[in-house]
């Protein structure tokens, strides 16, 4: 065909005189929705020269009276290689525009008699709402652009699962489907959002990171829900152990106690329904399998937001020199050490303490280390090998600050009593099906780093090298260990290249999957955490965030239209990004089923 010629076969013939689209005198129904079969069509795909449909996106206009929202999941008829058949493309609404035929705001201003706010338009401008959709999946793996005019409907429950690629998993391998929350569409349809266990606990990928503004993002509540979901749905719950660090007040010190039912009956009913909707029972952690560790305080009471009597079975943990010596670098993780002098001293001390015949043979306590030889003689710091006195003095000064003057009471300057437990020794006996809660809420930052690092290192060794009991018998540890830590930015901050604790966390983030150590971490700002840690989290959960935060590069995995939605999330609403989802989805989740202090 020559250039400029028209393909006559492709040209649709003009319509002749039409019978009225509506019967004269009878206005079209105020609701312009059309019923096609049993399913309502809410709009039609609209592709234009400036806004074409693509393999990744399409647009559709909404019929009048239809209400839709971002994160609604829709389905649209799509092409199929066999004639007479069609496939279904599923998509996620990312934003909705309203357009009219006004070429500029000036047209609207002038239409109102040049700015009269009381003017009433006799004829509302022609306009429509256009929903922008990101493609999630297609029933037949066909990713052709959606053709113009195709009818669009809200997805059904089954359609939602197909959209997320979970339908086959739920049907064929239900043990791998972990309920992660509820998806609710504006149409009223809801469905459970599932995670694939192989992408949470391995082997494909692992780790979960949760971020959001404190108090709004409900990070801790969600983490506990997810852990319970994993344990309840796992075919092998006795192969999974959980270690939880309590960093805030006494939030997680009552996990094994039943909750107080809500006084408001409607809210209580809604609570029960939500748990039922996700297919789980609202039960607390098993008291027989939940263990609490509170840090030693300066006096008789633990250094915690609870008294010892409130949690009778809680164990007190502390650190003496023999059980801290191999972790000293963790204690010094935040102390500036430009020329690695302190690192050298620590190395010398660790080596010396391990030598029963050397200079440190008489050193078995912090007191002896800080006041006696070889580091101190007659009250004066001594050189240590080739390390000068001044440097040793700096080391001693920091040690006194950490162990004596600014200690919260965690350190025992002499020897531990029987009542005071060694955390690493307890965790070496970790059992599958059990939950271990370690309280660090009232510890100083350096102490928190020490405890967290100690836990991570211990668990890593348990999985990498195995562990033994006191008799030397090999202990069969759990197949998976879930570790929940809040305020991860304290231990693996962004912008810092390396420190003993960062290295530890990176080791878990990058290699923990293969060993079965799974990190469930949380922080207020994802940008404040080392990118290799968040980057290795196959599942990200995002709560409300500020506009400054979402503008950082850490959120580049989110489409721009969805990024701004983070600033509007209500309390309890989260965005879930999972390795096998093509787009993040919005979920809600049930309130905790364990006792929460302060909740009435």
């Amino acid at each position: 065909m020559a250039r400029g010629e028209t393909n006559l076969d492709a040209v649709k013939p003009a319509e002749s005189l039409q019978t009225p689209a509506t019967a004269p005198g009878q206005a079209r129904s105020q609701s312009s929705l059309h019923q096609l079969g049993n399913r309502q069509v809410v709009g039609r795909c609209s592709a234009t020269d400036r806004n074409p449909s693509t393999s990744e996106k399409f647009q559709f206009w909404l019929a009048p009276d239809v209400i839709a929202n971002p994160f609604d999941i829709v389905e649209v008829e799509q092409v199929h290689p066999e004639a007479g058949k069609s496939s279904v493309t599923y998509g996620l609404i990312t934003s909705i525009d309203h357009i009219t035929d006004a070429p500029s705001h000036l047209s609207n201003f002038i239409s109102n008699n040049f700015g009269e706010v009381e003017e009433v338009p006799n004829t509302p401008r022609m306009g429509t709402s256009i929903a922008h959709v990101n493609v999630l999946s297609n029933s037949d793996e066909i990713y052709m652009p959606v053709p113009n005019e195709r009818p669009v409907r809200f997805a059904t429950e089954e359609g939602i699962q197909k959209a997320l690629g979970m339908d086959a998993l739920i049907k064929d391998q239900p043990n791998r489907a972990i309920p992660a929350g509820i998806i609710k569409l504006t149409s009223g349809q809801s469905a459970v959002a599932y995670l694939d266990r192989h992408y949470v606990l391995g082997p494909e990928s692992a780790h979960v990171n949760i971020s959001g503004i404190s108090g709004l993002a409900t990070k801790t509540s969600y983490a506990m829900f997810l852990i319970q979901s994993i344990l309840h749905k796992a075919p092998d719950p006795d192969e999974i152990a959980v270690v939880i660090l309590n960093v805030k007040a006494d939030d997680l010190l009552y996990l094994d106690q039943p909750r107080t039912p809500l006084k408001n009956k409607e809210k209580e009913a809604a609570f029960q329904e939500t748990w039922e909707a996700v297919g789980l029972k609202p039960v607390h952690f098993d008291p027989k399998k939940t263990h609490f560790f509170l840090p030693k305080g300066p006096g008789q009471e633990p250094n915690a937001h609870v008294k010892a009597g409130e949690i009778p079975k809680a164990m007190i943990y502390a650190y003496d020199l023999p059980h801290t010596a191999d972790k000293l670098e963790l204690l010094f993780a935040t102390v500036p050490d430009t020329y690695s002098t302190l690192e050298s001293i620590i190395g010398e001390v660790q080596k010396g303490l391990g030598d029963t015949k050397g200079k440190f043979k008489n050193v078995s306590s912090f007191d002896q280390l800080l006041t006696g030889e070889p580091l101190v003689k007659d009250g004066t710091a001594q050189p240590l090998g080739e390390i000068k006195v001044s440097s040793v003095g700096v080391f001693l000064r920091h040690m006194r600050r950490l162990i004596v003057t600014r200690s919260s009471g965690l350190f025992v300057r002499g020897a531990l009593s029987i009542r005071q437990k060694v955390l690493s020794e307890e965790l070496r006996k970790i059992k599958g099906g059990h939950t271990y809660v370690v309280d660090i809420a009232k510890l100083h930052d350096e102490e928190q780093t020490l405890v967290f690092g100690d836990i991570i290192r211990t668990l890593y060794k348990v999985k990498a090298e195995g562990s033994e009991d006191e008799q030397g018998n090999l202990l069969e540890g759990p197949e998976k260990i879930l570790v929940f830590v809040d305020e991860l930015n304290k231990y693996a901050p962004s912008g810092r290249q390396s420190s003993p604790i960062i290295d530890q966390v990176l080791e878990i983030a990058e290699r923990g999957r293969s060993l079965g150590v799974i990190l469930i971490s949380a922080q207020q700002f994802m940008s404040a955490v080392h990118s290799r840690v968040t980057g290795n989290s196959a599942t990200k959960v995002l709560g409300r965030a500020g506009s400054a935060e979402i503008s950082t590069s850490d959120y580049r995995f989110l489409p721009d239209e969805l990024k701004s939605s983070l600033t509007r999330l209500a309390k309890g609403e989260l965005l879930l990004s999972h390795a096998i989802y093509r787009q993040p989805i919005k979920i809600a989740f049930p309130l905790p089923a364990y006792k929460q202090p302060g909740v009435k």
Partner: protein
Amino acid sequence: MFELRKLPSILRVLHDNLKILPATGGAVEDLQRPDVDEIEDGLANKELTEISAFAEDPDPTGQPLYISTPPIHRIRDHLFRFFIDGSLRTYYIATAIERDRTFPVELAQIGSACIHRLQDGRLTAMSHSNRVLLLVPKGGEGMSEDVFDELTKLNTPDESFQVINTLAKTMHTSATEIDLRTRAGGIARNRMHRLEVNIINSTDGVRGEDSWVILDGAVKLDDFIQVDHLIGVAKSFDKKPQFHIPGSKTRNVDVTGLIAGLPYAHRTRAFQAHGGKVAFWYVRLWEQVHLDYPLMGVLKIELPCPTAQPAPVDLINRLSSALVAERSVTPYGQDKRWHCHLYPIYCAELTIKSRFYAHDVLLGAIRWPRPALATT
């Protein structure tokens, strides 16, 4: 080359000898091509050169010439429910030669639509009609009857395509018009008006006292439109008529002079046309201060009066007030005639034109057969 510094002196002569109505926004570039609406109004009312009788009851002789018609919005009185417009595009596609006769071949797309406004203000296309016409002169200096008959065999049963003889006489053409292309344009316009009449007839049964039709243009389309509850609204109109206003002292004023003094949200008195069969008047929709020149923002309204009786003044006032309210919303930025273009009529125009073949598509479809190559 003309020196611009001579312009003030020219303007001085005009000002000193004439009544000048300056363009408010300064000089405005005139239309590149003739105002079709104004020409059509002139053709429809070509006998209307002197107007001397009122067409409203009670007779307003001696009364003020301008009447206040503040806007009455749809939420208070939803008077106009149906809006009808017609549109056409004509294309000269060839000159044909038959024996020693030469004549033009024209193609036209015509259409008409009726827009229905629902109670809540939303618009819906109630009916529409489109045609493609091949316009050729038959007989005389035109096409032979044989060839014309051959062409008419291609007419479609649903009349979506028709072959039309451009030598027929219509309101828009005279038997003495020798420019065949002009005649073709006139014939196409006439056929478009027939579509409009069909559309008007399709509103029988739905028009009523509280459910009026607005027709874009004059109410004389070859013949007078005799239906009730319909008005014609012209955005642009003939400036030739002279008004002799009855009164204790007859006032003579032309259209421009009549409209120049018309305040915002006012109407002029209604005048008789065509022996009383039509009452017409003017309504100003916009304050003059917002517009470029005084004749902008004014509509000419025609009301069919089949019994040739004057129209009740209350009815004329109601129609005018409802029309003033129709200025919102306006197609500002989309049409140069925004100041007098009613939005539902604009939508009717869009409805029609959206069903036309695009210019490039239509012209690309015109592929003349190639002459057969000689075999020897």
